[in-house]
Each structure stands twice: as structure tokens, then as C-alpha cells.
């Protein structure tokens, strides 16, 4: 036997070191540009201002007139969210199927179908809303359609990535036995992914409830718009009541999601039909809710398929062409890209770190409460608070993004971890490893692709986050776009949209590429 040769060096070390250095070199200027100064948070005078501001939230507004208005807005919002999501789902299933690499034998980045999805969700809701207002006039139809399209793009992407992140072996085995791709996915991947797919869908519904700001653009009202106003006017009492409503809805959505996950996890009874009375009743309630929503909102999509509509849409789209490519404007957009990157990267990174910490503990109750609360408070509200805390500027924007995104990522992480193969982590705990370490060594390698996908996806969303950045004077592409759209400078707006799309496509492809490398 050889005389104990010197242990070989880790061949991966060099790559890891240069990767870390590269990340530092990229992140450092971004943090500088975002004016990252956490110290400002703990400035006593700022704390006083916030305290004063928050005191204004008490007591919540309870006037009968306001409550009646709130109640109606809540119903409207639920209907809009349900209708919008139903539309999104119908779009997302075929598109997600086309875009996902799951069940394919040749691994692929699907640049084409992925870019199509990016465009669907990357065109800002406001643009879709303005487009559909030309067809449907003011009212919920335009808003629901705008919501459906953007959310369809988002759902399709996330469905695609969830399916890619589970163990591909069962689907491959089925394909090798001659099963077609759709069936291989249904039989081989769906049982593994169903919990996460269900909970992401419910989460999107919850987002649709919050996102009804866009509905306000076209006069469809709802809670989001109400919140928007209350915050802009700094009307604490009203904001508090609306916030409480939001929290109620978010907790309800969380409850539904948990129930669904449990139901999907319960072993079915030992008989041929896998369905119990619960699943049957659920399958009955769901379509009725969707039909009721469309009915109540009086939405009909017939008008969309008329010649007039095509003409009107064509005219609107033509207005965006050609984009303004003058060097002046490109320079402004370039600056906007830089600002946007800084804010979104800092915000998303902070959120990813804190979200992961909050997703880890085994005893979920207090942490899901915290996450739900963080998520219930819309970015705009956080922006108001952070602007008071650290002053107008990019850091306020980054913080606001971080706070809301923590709530989102924390929840998504927790569920992805719950869904990751449990055996490796469990085995390590059995060998006495502390929980945190068995997570890092056992669970994380299995869950990493999905965590990365969620993080990059949120980053992509944060890049588009327009409202709050303009609101806190942080500039960026979002504000630029909103400004130019308001002025009907469609050529300029179209440059901004293209810049956003390019950023989003880049993020999306990075995500796909990273996940494939991790595979």
C-alpha cells in the first residue's frame, strides 16, 4: 500500500473562490448605489417619526360608511382575484407545459417559450390595462384580463420550475416505457409536485387580492386601490382597517393552502377511488366560485374578438413603435437600469437571507405569523414607513422591497423545504447532527434549485416594482416608465419596457442556466 500520499486538493476550490470574488466585485458597487446604510434605521429621531406615524394607525377606522365601503371592496377584490386567477390558470397550464424542461429527455433552456412568458408577465400591468381599456372601456373586464395575462405568465413560469425541481427519475422511467410527455408528467412528477403547485396557486390568488391596485387604474376598485389612497393620504385609521382586512385574507389564504397541502398528503383510503368527501366538495365549490365571480363582475370577453378591438389594439401597439433610441434617452434608461439593479438586488438579497432564516424553524406557528404579516403589508405601505425611517431615496426603496419580499420568500422557501426529499436531512439528524447543519448538508442540496428559482423570480418581480420606487423618489426603471406612460410618451416608454424585458429575460435565463448547472 502507498505511504499515505498527501490528500488531494479539492478540484472545486478554485472555482468557488473565483466565484465568491466575482460576486463581491459585482455586489459592492450595487450596495453603494443603493446607499446601503442600515445605521439610519436606528436613528432615534427617525424612530420617533415612525412611532408618531404608526400611532396614527390607531384606532382603526370603524365608521359604518367606511366599513360598508370596505366590505364591498373586499367582495369585489375576492371576485376579481378569483376571476383573474382562473384566467391565469387556463393560460398557465399549456404555457407552463411548453416552457418546462420537465419530462423532456433533452435538457433544454427553452429560450423561446421562456421569453414568451417573460414578455407576458414583463409587460407592466398598467400597459395591459391601458390596452384593454380601449376594448372594454372602464370597468373590471380590462383589469381582470390584465391580471390574467400577467399572472398567467408568472404561474406558467413557476409551474415550469416546480416541475423541473422534483426528482425526474419517475418521469424518465415512464417515458422509457413509451409513455408520452404529458402522461409522464402527470404520473411521474405530479404526485411529487402537487403540494407545491397547489400552494403556489393559492399564494398567487393571495397576491391577486393585494394586487388590485392595478384594477384601480381602470376603475374597477377593490381593496388595493383603497389601500393605495389611504397610504398616499397618510390616513392611518383607514389604512389600519384595510391592513387588518388584508391580514385576514392572507391568513385565510394561508389556511386554505395548508389545508390543501395536508389533504394532498393524507394517504387515501384503501379503496379504488382516491377521493374522499372533502376533495369532492372542494372540486364542486371551486368552479362555482369562479362562475359566480365572472357573473358578479359582469365580465364577457366577446368584445375582444371583434374587428374594432383588433384595430384599436393595433393602433395602441403601433404607438409604441419605433422605440426612442436616441443616445440621450438611452443614457437615461441606462441610469435607470443601474438604479433599478441596485435597489432590487439589495432588497432581494436582504429578503432572501431573512426569508431563509424565518423559513427554517421546525415550529412554524410564530414564524408563519410573522411572515404572513410581513406579506400582508403591501410594498407601498412599507415604502411609506421606510421612507420615514431612512428618508426618501434608494435605500428606503430597497428596504421596503426587502420587508415585503421577506414575507413572500419566507413562505415559498418554507414550502419548498417541506417538499424537498426529507430522508437525507433526517438521516443526518439521526446521526446526531444539529438541525441547522443537517439542513445545510442534507436538505439544502435537494431544495437548492427551487430556492434559487424562487429568489431569482422575486428579483425579476422587484425589478419591475414600479409604484413604490417612484413613491420614495428612488428613481429606477419603474418610475421612468410610469412617468412616460402618464405623458403618453409611448416611444420612450417602449424603450423602458424593452430594457425591463431584457433585464427580465436575462434574469430568467440565468435562473434556468443555474438550475441546469445544479441539476
Amino acid at each position, binding site marked *: 500500500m502507498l505511504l499515505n500520499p498527501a490528500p488531494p486538493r479539492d478540484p472545486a476550490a478554485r472555482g468557488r473562490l473565483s466565484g465568491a470574488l466575482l460576486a463581491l466585485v459585482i455586489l459592492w458597487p450595487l450596495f453603494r448605489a443603493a446607499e446601503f446604510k442600515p445605521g439610519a434605521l436606528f436613528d432615534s429621531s427617525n424612530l420617533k417619526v415612525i412611532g408618531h406615524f404608526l400611532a396614527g394607525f390607531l384606532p382603526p377606522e370603524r365608521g359604518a360608511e367606511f366599513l360598508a365601503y370596505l366590505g364591498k371592496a373586499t367582495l369585489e377584490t375576492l371576485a376579481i382575484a378569483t376571476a383573474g386567477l382562473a384566467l391565469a390558470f387556463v393560460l398557465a397550464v399549456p404555457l407552463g407545459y411548453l416552457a418546462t424542461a420537465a419530462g423532456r429527455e433533452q435538457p433544454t433552456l427553452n429560450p423561446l417559450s421562456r421569453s414568451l412568458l417573460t414578455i407576458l408577465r414583463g409587460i407592466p400591468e398598467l400597459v395591459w390595462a391601458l390596452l384593454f381599456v380601449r376594448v372594454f372601456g*372602464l370597468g373590471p373586464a380590462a383589469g381582470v384580463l390584465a391580471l390574467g395575462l400577467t399572472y398567467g405568465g408568472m404561474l406558467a413560469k413557476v409551474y415550469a420550475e416546480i416541475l423541473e425541481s422534483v426528482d425526474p427519475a419517475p418521469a424518465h422511467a415512464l417515458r422509457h416505457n413509451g409513455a408520452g410527455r404529458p402522461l409522464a408528467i402527470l404520473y411521474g412528477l405530479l404526485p411529487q409536485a402537487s403540494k407545491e403547485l397547489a400552494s403556489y396557486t393559492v399564494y398567487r390568488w393571495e397576491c391577486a387580492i393585494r394586487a388590485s391596485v392595478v384594477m384601480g*387604474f381602470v*376603475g374597477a376598485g377593490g381593496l388595493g386601490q383603497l389601500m393605495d*389612497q389611504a397610504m398616499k*393620504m397618510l390616513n392611518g385609521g383607514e389604512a389600519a382597517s384595510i391592513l387588518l382586512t388584508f391580514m385576514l385574507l392572507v391568513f385565510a389564504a394561508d389556511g386554505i393552502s395548508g389545508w390543501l397541502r395536508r389533504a394532498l398528503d393524507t394517504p387515501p383510503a384503501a379503496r379504488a377511488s382516491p377521493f374522499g368527501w372533502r376533495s369532492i366538495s372542494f372540486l364542486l365549490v371551486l368552479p362555482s366560485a369562479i362562475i359566480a365571480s365572472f357573473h358578479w363582475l359582469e365580465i364577457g370577453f366577446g368584445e375582444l374578438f371583434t374587428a374594432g378591438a383588433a384595430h384599436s389594439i393595433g393602433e395602441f401597439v403601433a404607438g409604441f413603435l419605433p422605440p426612442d433610441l436616441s443616445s440621450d434617452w438611452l443614457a437615461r434608461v441606462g441610469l435607470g437600469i443601474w438604479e433599478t439593479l441596485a435597489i432590487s438586488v439589495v432588497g432581494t438579497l436582504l429578503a432572501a437571507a431573512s426569508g431563509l432564516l424565518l423559513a427554517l424553524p421546525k415550529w412554524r406557528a410564530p414564524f408563519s405569523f410573522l411572515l404572513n404579516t410581513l406579506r400582508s403589508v403591501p410594498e407601498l405601505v412599507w415604502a411609506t414607513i421606510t421612507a420615514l425611517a431612512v428618508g426618501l431615496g434608494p435605500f428606503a426603496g430597497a428596504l421596503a422591497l426587502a420587508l415585503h419580499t421577506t414575507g413572500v420568500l419566507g413562505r415559498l422557501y418554507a414550502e419548498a423545504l417541506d417538499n424537498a426529499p426529507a430522508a437525507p436531512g433526517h438521516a443526518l439528524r439521526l446521526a446526531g447532527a444539529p438541525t441547522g447543519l443537517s439542513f445545510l448538508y442534507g436538505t439544502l442540496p435537494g431544495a437548492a434549485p427551487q430556492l434559487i428559482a424562487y429568489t431569482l423570480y422575486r428579483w425579476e418581480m422587484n425589478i419591475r416594482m414600479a409604484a413604490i420606487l417612484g413613491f420614495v*423618489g428612488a428613481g429606477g426603471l419603474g418610475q421612468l416608465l410610469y412617468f412616460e406612460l402618464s*405623458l*403618453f410618451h409611448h416611444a420612450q416608454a417602449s424603450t423602458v419596457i424593452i430594457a425591463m424585458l431584457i433585464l427580465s429575460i436575462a434574469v430568467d435565463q440565468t435562473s434556468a442556466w443555474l438550475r441546469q448547472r445544479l441539476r
Partner: protein
Amino acid sequence: ADAVLRVSAIPDEAPTELQRKFAPLGKYLEAQTGMKVVFTPVSDYAAVVESLATKKIDLAWLGGFTFVQAKIRTNGTAIPIVQRAEDAVFTSRFITADPTIKALADLKGKTFAFGAPSSTSGSLMPRFFLQQAGLNPEKDFKNVAFSGAHDATVAFVAAGKAEAGVLNASVWDKLVEQKKVDTDKVRVFATTPPYFDYNWTVRGDLDPALVKKLTDAFLKLDPANPEHKEILGLQRAAKFIPTKKENYEGIEKAAHSAGLLK
């Protein structure tokens, strides 16, 4: 009556507030025209212009600048019919809570809040007058925020989120009147010269008889009549006067020179 008159308004105030303000006026117009009046409040300026341009609404309450945009987007067919007496000599107020700010020139290096980007009195005209005073907001201010609405601007300044801001005089006066603003803290330090602002506009291809009916209805509103007085009060108008496209040429020029129109 089958016929429906579809109405909307730019959201220079909260949409809920707009809806409340419009209710009696809507009833009055229903009585005058014999049509059902449907008012849809929105939260985005551009949506009003867009739906006017595609004939999805018939009558809209527009700002001076929004009207110019609407005129351009409808190829010059949109017709302004009436405006409030006050709108012929409209002004914007620059406000601050910072004792060191006494004139426009002191704004250099401060944070500043406009209303909505396409607001005439909250963005366009103040920008124009700032420009005449030699200030470029994007370059000379530390930070520019868009509060989205006039009352929000006041809230921004009062809470210290922005060191100064600008809003339309009418909303400011209303807030002062309703004691919704602490004038010891927030004060006006500059006012713009007068310009033409808001009007009621109809789409160009509306039946001329109906246009006439509507115009007359507005002009007939009489402060002496208690019912009318309520309507006028809510609209913050002494009375309505006729208006015409030419009144807004000044604004169009200002918008061009401020770079808001291309």
C-alpha cells in the same frame, strides 16, 4: 331610458372622494338629459384619456394638461365645453415645512414632491415656472418623488418625507378650510402665475344636440338655487363658464417647453 352617458374624471383626488363629489351632479345631469349617467372613478390619469380616445366614455373631467393630451390623442376632436370660473385663473402653491426655505431658489438640493406626473397643477405648470426661475427638478433637487395626488403631497410635506412640494391652489384651500393641514407647520412660500386649468370635455363625435344639452345644463347651475349650490359647492365652483380649445394653447406651449410633450 336605454341611453347611457358614461362619465369619468382624472384622479387628482381620491377616487372615492371623486365619486362622492359627483353623485349630486350626476343626478342633475340625468334629469337634464334624460339619460342614465354612469360615473366610473379611476386611479390613473392615462386611463381617462385612453377611454375618451376610444369612445368608451362620453364626458370627462380633465385637467388643462390632460385635455391637451386628450386633444392630441383624439386627433383634435375632443371638445372642452365648460369650466369653473376659478379655472380661468388657476394657480399652484409651493409648500414646505422647512423654515429655511423662503423662495424657489432655496429648493436647490432639497427633496421635492410633485403630484401625479400628468397633473397640470401638480406637475406641469409648477415645472414650467420652476424652469423659468432657472431650476431643473431632475438636476437641482436632491430627490424627486411623485405623490400621485394633491392631498398626498401635503401629507408628504407635513410628515417630513419631502422637504417641499407643490399642489393645486384649490385643493390647498379646501384642506386649509377643513383644517386638515396644520398651517403653523406647513406653509405656502410661493405661488405660480395664473393659467387655464380644469374643464369638462366631451368626445368629438357625440350628438351635437346632446353636447348642447350638457353645456346648457352646466351653465344653468345657479348659486342662488340651494340644490345647485350644493352641486357647485362640491365641485368647488362659483359657477361654470364656457370654454374653448384656444384657452389651452398656453399650457400646450408650456408643456412643450418643459419637455412633457414631444
